[in-house]
């Protein structure tokens, strides 16, 4: 695997739209060609090379290409957008849409990300070592096809509206989450190792939420069923199982209504 290293040299005075920072865009290109890729500040078009020192070498294919991005990237959007393969490492906080619509490969952010990371994710792995913003792994506005597959792991906390319209894949939050989790979800799994506030599983059709910490307020549409032993994805313990959203539509299998499941840990 070949590596291209980007180091930001000029900070944009507004925000930098850099959806070209992906293995797909870099693969098979010379450094000069990569420097000529387009980025935008407002309506102005610039070269990637105008903002970044670029060194190293890109692989022949996305699979063989790794990108390391250094410097303060807190005003850079769209890193890793739509990537299908390869690897991106961001050694900084960064802004919105990290890994949005990504289909494969791996993104590691050694810092915080802002909203809409992993929007409409179809596959691959997104690892955030800091905190994540709102709408993590959610659907784009109006789309009923949210996160389809892949895995998002956040070491710190996440904001509101994670996993909206989630259909598949997995989101693991090491810390706490804000309101509205897995709204309208029809599949997938969300694991919250810290505490949750309220509106978990609102309008949820199918899928699973695991909460290891506290929940401020349970939705009226979620009913306690029983205590169960859980051993999933390294999470072991005794959990209270709730089913819902009782107000929402659900399909039936063999005459049995299939609800979304919310597990809250009682003891480790």
């Amino acid at each position, binding site marked *: 695997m070949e590596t291209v290293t980007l180091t930001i040299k000029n900070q944009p005075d507004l925000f930098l739209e850099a959806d070209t920072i992906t293995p797909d865009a870099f693969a098979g290109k010379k450094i000069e060609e990569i420097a000529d890729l387009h980025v935008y500040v407002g309506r102005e078009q610039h070269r990637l090379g105008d903002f970044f020192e670029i060194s190293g070498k890109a692989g022949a294919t996305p699979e063989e290409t790794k990108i390391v991005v250094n410097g303060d990237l807190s005003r850079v959007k769209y890193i890793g957008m739509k990537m299908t393969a390869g690897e991106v490492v961001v050694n900084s906080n960064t802004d919105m849409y990290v890994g949005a619509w990504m289909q494969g490969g791996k993104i590691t952010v050694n810092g915080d990300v802002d909203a809409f990371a992993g929007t409409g994710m179809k596959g691959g792995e997104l690892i955030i070592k800091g905190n994540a913003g709102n709408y993590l792994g959610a659907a*784009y*506005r*109006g*789309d*009923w096809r949210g996160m389809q597959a892949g895995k998002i792991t956040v070491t710190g906390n996440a904001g509101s509206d994670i996993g909206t319209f989630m259909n598949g894949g997995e989101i693991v939050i090491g810390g706490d989450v804000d309101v509205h989790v897995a709204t309208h979800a029809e599949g997938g799994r969300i694991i919250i190792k810290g505490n949750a506030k309220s509106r978990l599983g609102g309008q949820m059709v199918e899928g699973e939420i695991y909460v290891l910490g506290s929940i401020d307020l349970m939705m009226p549409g979620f009913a306690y069923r029983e205590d169960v032993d859980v051993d999933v994805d390294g999470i072991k313990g005794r959990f209270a199982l709730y089913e819902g959203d009782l107000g929402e*539509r659900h399909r039936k299998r063999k005459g049995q209504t299939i609800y979304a499941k919310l597990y809250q840990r009682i003891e480790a």
Partner: protein
Amino acid sequence: MAEYLIKNGFVFDPVLGIKGDKADIAIKDGKIVETTALGSPKVIDAAGKTVMAGGVDIHAHVAGPKVNIGRNFRPEDKLFGYKARSGIERMQGGFSVPTTIRTGYNYARMGYTTVMEAAMPPLYARHTHEEMRDTPILDQGAYPVFGNNWFVLEYLKNHEIENAAAYIAWLLRATKGYAVKVVNPGGTEAWGWGLNCENVHDPVPYFDITPAQIVKGLIEANEHLGLPHSMHVHANNLGNPGNYTTTLDTFKLSEGIKPNSKFGRDQVMHHTHVQFHSYGGDSWVNVESKAKEIMDYVNSHENITIDMGQVTLDETTTMTADGPFEHHLTELNHLKWANADVELETGSGVVPYVYSPNIKVCAIQWAIGLELALFAKDPMRIFITTDHPNAGPFIRYPRVIKWLMSTEAREQQFDAFKHKDKVIEATNLAGIDRELNLYEIAQMTRAGPAKALGLAHMYGGLAPGLEADVAIYDFNPNEPYAPDDIETAFLNAEHLFKTGVQVVRDHNIASNGNKRTLWVNAKVDENPQVMRDVKEKFLRYYTVTLNNYEVTGHYLPNPYVIEVDATE
């Protein structure tokens, strides 16, 4: 205005009866003229290319309230699907429900110059006209909906044809409308209570009238006025297994009625998107094609025209004044549902829909649409549409043309179906080897719809005196081609002239054109009773005043009025 001479193209024109022979087409002052009438024209070399009149779309949902609901509530329909502003081209967006700007440009790119908006709620006429005003290039008109209108229900309940006609004339003037449209007659009024009318004899709640009375009465009123277009109907029971009997019952309502129109049409009923109305079986499990039965009737009755409503196997946005149908649809696919009932007049619903080649029913729908066109004896009476965007976006017309012209293309599609065998079993298409030729395509997309609209004196052909709407496609019918070459060519007209202005040059938009809005001004004898009824209903039941209802002035910056004298 510039003069043009389009030389040596292979011309396909049902009006002149030219079937692909080489001919020259002359343009002067916005009209087609004899080549001898030209002075020093710009010459367009069309050698080895296909030349046709500008396309005419008799039924599409391209402007108005429900179309804009479709745009505004589907951001995902525009995601990554935009085209940036450049030169004279304004920015464009949207796939199944494009912005007005893209609508105008994309029709032009396909060689179309006239597009009719198929359903205008009268109370929203201003909105519909604002959108048409902002749709570049195309000549357009809009059909106000009448089939659930309280005035109409009350007049026709007592068979008061003259009063119904006087009201139609008044509403066409008030809304600047073009024709009489009927959607799920009585059913949409019933939907005001969450109900529906599922066959032509199903009484309308409270109003004590049946869909059959509404349709027959509106045909008679339409002919009483002698309007350019016939009554244009979307029958009851759309989209349900076994509904072909309702469709045949609706057809039969036109029996024995002859056209009374100075505008050269032969039909008294246009039934739209018949694909959605040609289903046998009694459930989605055993649904099957009844296109044969439907077309046997159409072929043997000259006072009917139809359009296809061809399913294109895309993700799209359904939208119709058939409110109960859209509710039924959202119950099936659980996708977002918008509904917009309109006081005293009509209603509508909007639901996204994914026609997947992996779903048996979608594939059967695809086959049925094509069967209708391929069973047609008279291509001047059946027209290519997708009921845009209901069965698919209009941008797929070239693909529909490909399927109609090539058994190979149809076989390729059959092979792509997940349930190929079940689909073949439930339809006739696999056994049909007919391939339409370009002359028949010109009939189904130009001359036929123009005639049915009562606009044969303006559109649909290349005879001297007609509007200079001319499309030139980079397609040589006399050389071997692959099916996809057809789609490519008809998707990207090389040149397009619209009333003499070159709007597409070398496959690019060259002008925003000289767009016109057509409406019908029907003069009738004074009718004090109808005017009293109008005043009374506005006073008591409408939420806008009568004086704030009529569409006037700047909403139609470039109007084209078709005068009809229906006075005794």
